[in-house]
Structure formats: C-alpha cells, structure tokens
C-alpha cells in the first residue's frame, strides 16, 4: 500500500460563483448523492432491504404460501402486507433505494467517463523534478550511447511493453522519457459500471414488456391449449403488454415419460408434444426439465408433473359425463389431491330443470402406488399399484356464487352450512382404474384411468439476451478493473559529464497509481537492464 491515493474523484468543484441558494442546495445534494460514501450507504441499504423478501413468503414467488401465512399469523399478516412485505421487490421503498443507486451510479460514472476520455487523450506528464522522491527510484547510471540514442532505446523498450510513451527534449540537451500504462483498469471499471446500468435498465424493460403464465397440460389431443390469457391457470402480463400481444401458438402433449430412482426421487422427465406456431402446421417436439421448448417470443419450461384422473359419472337418469381432472401432488411420492365436480347432472328429462340440490362432487386422494396397509400416502411416484380414495357429496356445490373457486377443493362453506352433504360412508371408497362405484341413488362413478400431466411455465422476457451480454461485459470489465494496475515510469537521460567520452546518465523513477504489489519487480525489470552500462536492453530481472 505504498500507494499515492490518486484516484479520479467525483466531479471537480466548479469555480465559486454567487449562486442562488436553491441552485446551491441542488448542486450540493447532487454532489452528496454521487459521492462514494453515499454509494456505499445505498449498497448497504439495498442489501438490508432485500432481507425481508427471504423471510416472508412472496406473492410473486408463491401465492399459496402467502395465504398460508395469513392463516398462520392473522394478526401480523396485514401489517406485513401494509409495508409491502409480501412484495418486497416491487415495493416502493425497494424501488426508491435502487432508483437512488441508479441515479448515483449515473452521476458517478458520467463525470468519470469524461475524465477518463480526457486522460486517454493526454500524453503522460513530464517527469517530476526529483525522481528520488518517488516510491520507486533507480539512481543514475551511465550508458555509452548518446542521450538521444539512449532515450530512443528506452522509449522503444517501454513501447514494446505497451506503455504509452512520450519522449521530451530537455533544455540541457538531455531527454525525458515519460510512460504510463494501465488505462484499461479505469476503462474496465467504467465498463463494469455501465454494464450495471444496462442490466438495471434491462430488468426494467423485461418487467414492462415481458409476460408469463403457468398452466397444467394434460396428455391427450383433447387437452391441448392455444396461447391466450384465458388459457392460463395464473398469468401476469407486464404493464405494457396487452392480451392481444401474446404470440400465437398451440401445444398438445402426446406423451409424458417420468423415470425414478428406487428411492422415489425423480430421475428424468420428458414431455413429447406437438406444437403449432402462427398459422403453421403441427410439428413434433419434446423438452425436458433443463431444456425448454423455445418458441418464437415464448419459452415453454417443464417444471413439474402429476396425474390427471379421468372420471365418468352416470346420473340417476342414465346421462353420463366425463371429466379429466388434474390432481395436485402433496408430497414427493405423488400422493395427489383433487376434486371432480358435476354441477349439471341429475336433470330431470321431463322438466329439464336443474335441481341445485342434486349436484354431485367427489373429493379424493390418488395414490399411484398404494401401500398394503391401506395408509393414505403413496409409496412410490410411478403407478405401480394405483388406487383412488373418493368421498362423494351431493347438494349445492356453490359454484355459481360468482367467486373464483378453487378447482382443487370443494366449497367448504357449502359443506359447513349443510347445503352440500356427504353421501358416502365414514371411510372413503377405494377405486382401482376401471372400477365403478354405485352411489346410494343408483348413479355411478367410473374411474376410467389416469393421464400424466406436465406443469408448464411459459414466459417471454424480451431483454434476456441483452442482459446476458451486459453481464458478460460487466464481468470482463470487473476483471480488468480488479486486476489492472495503473502506473507511471520516467527516465531522465542527461549527457554524461565527461563530454569527451560521450555517453549519457540515466535516472529512473516509478509511481504506481493504484495498489500494485508487483510494481517493484516490474520497475526493477525495466530499469535494471536499461540503465546497466551498455548491455542488453532487456535481460532477466
């Protein structure tokens, strides 16, 4: 650290002027905001502000967990919500911090860019009067050549080592050689900070112009979907995207393969699909967990899978209805829960009137591999011994109240107020694929079979590629900045006192402008041979 603290400070002070107080205040605040100290504080604030997002569940990450939190902490949750605790990264205070940091960054790098551009155009300054005051110094030594030749060869040596070099003629007939190297450090540093700016801007644009949706896609031609906002289980469009902007494509899944370790841990998933983009024809494709289906302006990611149950209900008048209902896995072994609701059944063909008290709903647990002990958890995620446990309800399902109801659970309110009654026995009815269950009124439920489904996340982020470029450039700049070293070296070549014999005297000095432990060695390597009596210019240090 024998370092001369010589770093570009932020904005030089302008000449004092009788400014009006408002302008003065503004300028002062600006200077405060763009100071290193403020940058430090803002960085810290940003780090601290990010913490709550890992403590409280985030709506953007997992909506379910937020409602669980509300149930678990009914007192606390509204307060957490009031302070944006469930949406930390979209909260005003988080935005305030990074916008301030962004401004500070702009205010900091623009003047530095200007200074650096200026520095790049200026020649290395002339040697200071006393080279022996510099951190590195090589005392005067004689060389046989004339000063001009000596200066010329020194300059050549420095240039070969990529120093920016300037030779000046001195009034006493001698020469000074000034050299500087390591501009890349500051270039890299600026590149890094500009890349940070680009990434921040990219995040913003990605947020504004991106969209995403999640959807369960059940295998089968009849279960395909076409990209439209109504087709998603949940979705979010960026503020500047409208439903009409979504790209046109359709997907149907023809096959889904999952393989497992003997422990039940999944080994691999593979979804085979047919896709159609725009007005084209269907083409086959497949994708897996780490290898999404990349479409034009949309990527389809496979993030999970489960079983959908195909159930057929035959009502008391003999009318049948089919349902394919996805069940949601509740554990790693694919113990899955779900419901099948039949609101439009048991309609008397004579009156053709729907009787709300005769709607039917089934709640069930599906075990792809049921145990021998009759426990209600699956033993293995693949279908080795599939069994479905069902409970039947009849009455008003409460689907028409206009509230968005879960498609994975029956309306608890209706059960509690007695409008929806359990009509099966105490214990749920076990059913095997192909099995049929006759209810008390003679209607029948058939467990036709299962199909695999894939959980898809479909996304588009227009700035993604740009961000990658920005990040890569930023990393390159960072390394230049961290590992580069700015330093100056001067040689003063004077005519030897003994004019008759000719020759010259060379003195050298070096100044590392940043923390650079290897500078002494470099300086020695450069000056050692160069000022040695007339030997090779370059040698081993």
């Amino acid at each position: 650290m024998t370092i001369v603290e010589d770093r570009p400070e932020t904005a030089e002070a302008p000449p004092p002027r009788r400014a009006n107080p408002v302008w003065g205040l503004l300028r002062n605040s600006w200077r405060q905001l763009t100071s290193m100290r403020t940058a430090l504080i803002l960085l810290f604030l940003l780090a601290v502000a990010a913490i709550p997002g890992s403590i409280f569940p985030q709506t953007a990450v997992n909506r379910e967990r937020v409602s669980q939190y509300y149930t678990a902490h009914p007192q606390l949750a509204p307060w957490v919500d009031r302070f944006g605790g469930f949406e930390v990264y979209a909260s005003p205070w988080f935005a305030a911090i990074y916008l301030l940091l962004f401004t500070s960054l702009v205010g900091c790098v623009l003047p530095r860019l200007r200074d650096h551009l200026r520095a790049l155009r200026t020649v290395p300054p002339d040697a200071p009067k006393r080279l022996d005051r510099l951190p590195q110094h090589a005392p005067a030594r004689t060389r046989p050549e004339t000063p001009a030749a000596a200066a010329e060869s020194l300059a050549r040596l420095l240039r070969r080592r990529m120093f920016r070099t300037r030779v000046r003629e001195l009034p006493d007939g001698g020469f000074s050689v000034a050299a500087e190297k390591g501009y890349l450090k500051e270039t890299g540093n600026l590149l890094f900070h500009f890349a940070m700016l680009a990434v921040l801007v990219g995040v913003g644009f990605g947020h504004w112009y991106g969209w995403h949706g999640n959807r369960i896609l059940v295998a089968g031609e009849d279960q395909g979907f076409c990209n439209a906002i109504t087709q998603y289980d949940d979705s979010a469009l960026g503020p500047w995207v409208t439903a009409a902007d979504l790209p046109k494509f359709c997907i149907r899944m023809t096959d889904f393969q999952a393989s497992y370790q003997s422990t039940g841990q999944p080994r691999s998933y593979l979804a085979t699909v047919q896709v159609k983009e725009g007005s084209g024809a269907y083409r086959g494709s497949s994708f897996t967990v780490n290898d999404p289906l990349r479409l034009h302006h949309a990527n389809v990611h496979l993030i999970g899978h489960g079983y959908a149950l195909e159930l057929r209900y035959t009502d008391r008048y003999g009318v049948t209805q089919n349902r394919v209902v996805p069940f949601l896995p509740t554990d790693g072994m694919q113990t899955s829960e779900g419901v099948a609701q039949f609101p439009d059944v048991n309609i008397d063909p004579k009156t053709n009137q729907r009787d709300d008290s005769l709607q039917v709903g089934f709640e069930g647990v599906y075990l792809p591999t049921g145990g021998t002990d009759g426990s209600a958890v699956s033993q293995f995620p693949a279908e080795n011994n599939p069994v479905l446990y069902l409970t039947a309800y009849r009455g008003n399902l409460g689907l028409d109240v206009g509230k968005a109801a879960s498609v994975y659970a029956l309306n608890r309110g209706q059960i509690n107020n007695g409008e929806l009654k359990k009509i099966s026995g105490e214990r749920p009815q076990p059913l095997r694929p192909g099995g049929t269950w006759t209810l008390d009124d003679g209607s029948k439920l058939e467990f036709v079979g299962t199909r695999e489904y894939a959980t898809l996340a479909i996304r588009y982020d227009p700035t993604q590629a740009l961000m990658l470029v920005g990040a890569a450039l930023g990393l390159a700049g960072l390394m230049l900045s961290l590992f580069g070293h700015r330093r100056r070296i001067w040689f003063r070549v004077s005519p030897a006192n003994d004019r008759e014999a000719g020759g010259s005297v060379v003195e050298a000095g070096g100044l590392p402008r940043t923390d650079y432990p290897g500078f002494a060695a470099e300086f020695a390597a450069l000056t050692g041979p160069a000022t040695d009596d007339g030997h090779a210019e370059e040698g081993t240090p």
Partner: protein
Amino acid sequence: MAELSNQLMALTVLAYLAAMVCYAGEYAFGKRSRIGKAAARPARQLVGAGAPADAEVPDDVPVQPVSPPKPGRGEWSGRIAAVLNVLALVLHLGTLATRGIAADRMPWGNMYEYILSATFVGSAVWVGVLLRRPALRHLGLFSSLALVVLLGAAALVAYTPVGPLVPALHSYWFIVHVSTVIISSGIFLIGAVPALMFVIKNGYDEGRRSFPYTLGKRVPTPAAVLERLTFRLHAFAFPLFTFGALIAGPLWAEASWGRYWGWDPKEVWAFISWIVYAAYLHARATPSVKRTVATWIALFGFVTMLMNLFGVNLFFEGLHSYANAGD
C-alpha cells in the same frame, strides 16, 4: 465407497483438529518476535497510506540478528501443524473423491457435499498461501478452527446419505454454476481468516486490550500484510462469485425454471452477499473510509455467506432442492 467416504471424513476432521492443536502450540510457545521478523520485512514497503498500523509495527518487532535462530518448541509445533494440515487436505480430497465415486457424479448434490467441497477449496487455498508465504503460518490456527467448525456442522446438521440428483440438477450448468460458487465460497471463507486477524491485530496495535483484541498480541504478521492478503483473496473470489452466482446461476435458472431471477431465498442471499462484497471493494477503494471499516464489511459479507449456507437451507423453503439438509 460411501462408508469409506464417511470414515475419511471423520479422519479429515481429526487431522484438522490435530493441526489446530499444533498451531495453537506454536501460538502459545512461539516467540512472536522471531516469526515476526520474517513477516515484518515486506511490511516496510507495504505499510502506507490508509493503514493506521504503520507506526506500531516497528516497535513491536525487536531487531533480530540475521542468523536463523534455532527452532524452539513453538517452531516445531508449527512445522508439525503445517504437515498435519497438508495431510488433512489430502484426507479431505479423499473424502470428496470417494463420495463422488459412491454417488457416481460430482459431489455437489446437497448441502453436506456442498460444505465439504467449499471447505476443501478454502483449505487448498490456505495451503497454497502457506507454501508461498510460510511467515503467515500462524494464521493456520484460525483457518483450521474454521474448517473444523464448518466440517463438524456439515456432519452434524447436514449429513445426507449418498443419493442421486433430482432432474433439475441434470445439467451442465450444474457443474459450471455450483463449482464456481463453491470455489468462490471457499476463497471467501479463507479470506475471512486474515480479515478477522487484521481487525484483531489492528485493534491491538491501536491500544485496545479487551478480549478479542488481546489475541493480537501474539500475531506476528503486521496488520497491513493481513489487510493486503484479505483484499487479494476477496478480489480474486469476487469475479468468480459474480460469474457463478449472478451469471451462470441465472442462466441455469432460465433454462430450468423459466426465469433467470426469481428472488428465491437462495438467490436473495447470494444477491445480498454480492452487494456486501461490492461494498467492501468500494470501501477499500475510498481513501476516506478506514481499512478497518472496509474489513468489517468483508467480514459481514462472510456472515451473509454463512447465512446463505446454513440459515437459508435450514429455515427457508425454496426451489434450490440441493439445498435440503439431511432428511
């Protein structure tokens, strides 16, 4: 193979423990003046500008004759410690290798293996430093202490039987992302040792005589040298961490989960660590900020890394499935 790995793991911890005891022996019996001499030489040219310690160093280091003094009890203890440390590193490598063979993949699939690997990198970097700068040997006491604690924690709270990877981990990015994060974590880990020693030593030099600072009395290396080492380790680890956690990680997340950044708890804490380490680099580059303050920031950065490793894995639930502690 898995059995062998577990046995080697136990031996590794014992070897680090033995090395630690010997380092402690050196610490207790060693004449600090003598070790100090070797370390003080670079100090003359290194101490400067921002380091408040420069005036203190010479007082603390009595002038010594040039002839090498004959090794005393402390010296022997230190040499044995260094040998044990290298032995422990070899055992550590063996633990990892057998674990990898048993699982038939890179041994980075869960929290236990992750800690095992990160500490290995830390240990290897430390041995590298030790070989290049033997004068810093006394730092071994603290590096081996850190390793014993972390490995002990890995074995006690995070042990997971050998198992295969979940599908999300079947990816080249798994190797790129996890290896770079492991390597940078290991270097940050070992960087925290001189950082802590600097804070202690510097505090002692400034006249503090309360508990942790009293440890500084027997630290022969000048504060400025410790500070430099701290910076170099961090400056090396930071770009690596940037690449691993903030470039390769998001790239993989994009391929796997569809979004490059989703504020999953692991991501949040990686972000926090990154910001804190960036603050450290800033603080160190700002002349008006004292080096002690900057170093405290680095130490704080390490706390956030630990939080990510233990806290997040144990308390929060996220998408990073390999983060699951033993079950």
